[in-house]
């Protein structure tokens, strides 16, 4: 993974020291809260309902075991013993004290981490495919490109005060999308043209929130050496023309939509023409400088283990079999798999890890890999380089930690935002709804029968829980001081991107999980075979068959009551 040079290191150390002085001045009354707020936000520090919240950046979700141990240490010493994985592949702490935050930042700097640009109207943490570098279906590791974007966008003097926050994702898989690039301000897809030359398809103007939009392609092919200058041109057009008068219309998606794709692309091209051959041109040497830190580790030469993998899936140990079936992903290197460590155990908030779990998983990353981990935007961890032979031992270790739930990509692999239990913006709780769903549908055999289904919950329209792109989406709303939940179907964040549609009136808290149950039962009635996926059924048949059972007409209710007598 990328290693800081002396300048990187000095910047994060000086930033921690600088924030220490700002905190001292805040306590001394030398700066007001209004003056302090932008300073703390630039260091990832929010004020939430019950406490401050500190968001730590994990660039493109790649983490070393040493860094994870540091995150565990911070959780134990400065917080309440746990951290929370976010949908931008970051980690949040929900209870830091203000005068501890400079110390936390100084601790993070010792392991090449920080909280810079995890908040505010700037380019946020660049995200990527959590299987980047090991996925069998990728063109090449996209992380060197994500790192180049990170370096370009960090402390970029022009883009420190954009109209609104700005999110970039990078992927390099032709046929799937695990980074939700179509729902980012900029999605960068590594592609290969007919001549075999690799470059980037650039999508601009996707997003969720109160105006969910799928990003259109602005440039079908940008040469590799021109990536940063093209992105700079996009940001310049946005910075100049993005709306600053209305926070709800300030994201780049609104600008692209207002101008139209062609007009927006033309403006970008015009800007790009002026800077394309300037200092942002990436030399082969510069690309190689960053790429060398992402060189594959020293894999053993192992025979292909597909047969062993199949045997484990079908073996007598059904718990292990289900885990291997659901939580392993094919690897580039023969004899290896990537393992999804599910942070979706029932009875616990999705994405929460204790200090002890973090430390033990860091140990496992070294014992069963090369000391590297990934954070997924679905709030799980990944051990990217596990030998197939080691799966039984790894499974036993994860089980002892409560991290072996065999539910990756299944119903209970829920994304849930912090919701009204923590978040100052939320209208309703998300985590208790998610936990109730995890408890109700914990039977993995039932989940396997349902097949791959994504369920995503947000506690407000800002959509941090990605409800718009859940096959099943749940949105919490406030109705006269009470929590209600809208149910929507048909969303997908991937290659087949779609935005879910609301089924009808919202359900009170006590009815929403029953409503999900009703939807699932209806799906099982409607599907043509076990291979007929939930999302395909919704797309084929629409919402009507689900509405019929969720909102029966009065006559149907009367008939049902009559039948019960």
């Amino acid at each position, binding site marked *: 993974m990328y290693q800081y040079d002396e300048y990187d290191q000095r910047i994060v150390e000086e930033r921690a020291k600088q924030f220490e002085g700002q905190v001292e001045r805040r306590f001394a009354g030398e700066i007001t*809260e209004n003056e302090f707020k932008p300073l703390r936000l630039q260091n990832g520090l929010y*004020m939430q309902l019950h406490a401050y919240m500190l968001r730590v950046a994990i660039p493109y979700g790649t983490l070393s075991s040493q860094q994870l141990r540091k995150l565990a240490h911070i959780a134990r010493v400065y917080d309440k013993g746990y951290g929370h994985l976010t949908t931008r592949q970051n980690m949040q702490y929900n209870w830091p004290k*203000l*005068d501890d935050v400079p110390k936390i930042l100084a601790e993070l700097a010792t392991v090449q981490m920080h909280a810079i640009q995890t908040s505010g109207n700037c380019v946020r943490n660049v995200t990527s495919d959590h299987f980047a570098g090991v996925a069998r279906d990728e063109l090449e590791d996209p992380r060197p490109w994500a790192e180049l974007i990170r370096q370009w966008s960090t402390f970029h003097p022009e883009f420190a005060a954009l109209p609104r926050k700005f999110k970039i994702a990078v992927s390099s898989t032709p046929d799937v999308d695990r980074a939700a690039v179509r729902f980012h301000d900029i999605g960068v897809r590594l592609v290969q043209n007919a001549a075999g030359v690799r470059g980037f398809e650039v999508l601009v103007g996707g997003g969720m929130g109160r105006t969910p939009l799928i990003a259109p392609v602005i440039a079908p092919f940008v040469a590799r050496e021109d990536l940063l200058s093209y992105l700079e041109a996009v940001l310049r057009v946005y910075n100049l023309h993005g709306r600053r008068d209305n926070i709800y219309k300030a994201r780049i998606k609104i600008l692209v939509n207002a101008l139209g794709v062609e007009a927006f692309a033309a403006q970008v091209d015009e800007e790009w023409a002026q800077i394309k051959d300037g200092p942002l041109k990436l030399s082969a040497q510069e690309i190689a400088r960053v790429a060398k830190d992402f060189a594959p580790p020293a894999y053993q030469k192992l025979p292909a283990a597909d047969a062993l993998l199949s045997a484990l899936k079908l073996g007598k140990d059904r718990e292990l079999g289900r885990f291997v079936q659901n939580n392993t992903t094919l690897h580039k290197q023969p004899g290896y798999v990537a393992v999804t460590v599910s942070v979706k155990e029932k009875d616990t908030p999705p994405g929460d890890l*204790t200090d002890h779990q973090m430390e033990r998983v860091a140990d496992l990353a070294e014992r069963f890999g090369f000391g590297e981990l990934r954070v997924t935007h679905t709030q799980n961890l990944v051990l990217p380089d596990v030998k197939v032979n080691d799966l039984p031992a790894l499974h036993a270790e994860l089980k002892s930690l*409560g991290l072996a739930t065999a539910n990756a990509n299944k119903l209970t692999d829920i994304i849930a935002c912090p919701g009204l*239990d923590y978040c100052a913006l939320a*209208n309703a709780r998300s985590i208790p709804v998610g936990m109730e769903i995890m408890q109700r549908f914990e039977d993995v055999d039932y989940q396997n029968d349902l097949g791959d289904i994504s369920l995503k919950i947000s506690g407000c329209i800002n959509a941090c829980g990605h409800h718009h792109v859940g096959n099943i989406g749940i949105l919490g709303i406030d109705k006269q001081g009470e929590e209600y939940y809208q149910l929507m179907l048909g969303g997908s964040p991937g290659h087949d991107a779609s935005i879910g549609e609301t089924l009808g009136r919202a359900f009170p808290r006590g009815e929403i999980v029953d409503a999900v149950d009703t939807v699932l039962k209806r799906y099982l009635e409607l599907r043509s075979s076990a291979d007929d996926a939930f999302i395909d059924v919704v797309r084929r048949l629409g919402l009507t068959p689900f509405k019929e059972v969720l909102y029966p007409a009065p006559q149907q209710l009367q008939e049902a009551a009559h039948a019960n007598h």
Partner: protein
Amino acid sequence: MPETQPLKWVVTANFTSEGGVAYLRADKSVTRVLAEAGRFATKADAEALRKLALGMEAILADPYLIEVAELPDGIDALSARERIRAAGPTIRVRRPDPRIHTH
């Protein structure tokens, strides 16, 4: 269901030191307990206390007003947000730690 009293106003904020929930008592002192908060029949009276709280920035951040109902046995915030804010997260804040459950 107990009969509710007329709507009243309370001044709340977060403690600067750790972000915890704070309420202003009628005597201008600060408490962490909603039931101890000063309740004002008019928004103007509450607003006067909020302005005073703005001057306590070393202790308090971002004071604002909330609506409450007085019950015979206490006080009830009228929004889900403020009820949860007053009582704390509705989920266990620390994940069960396997160390606690092993021998």
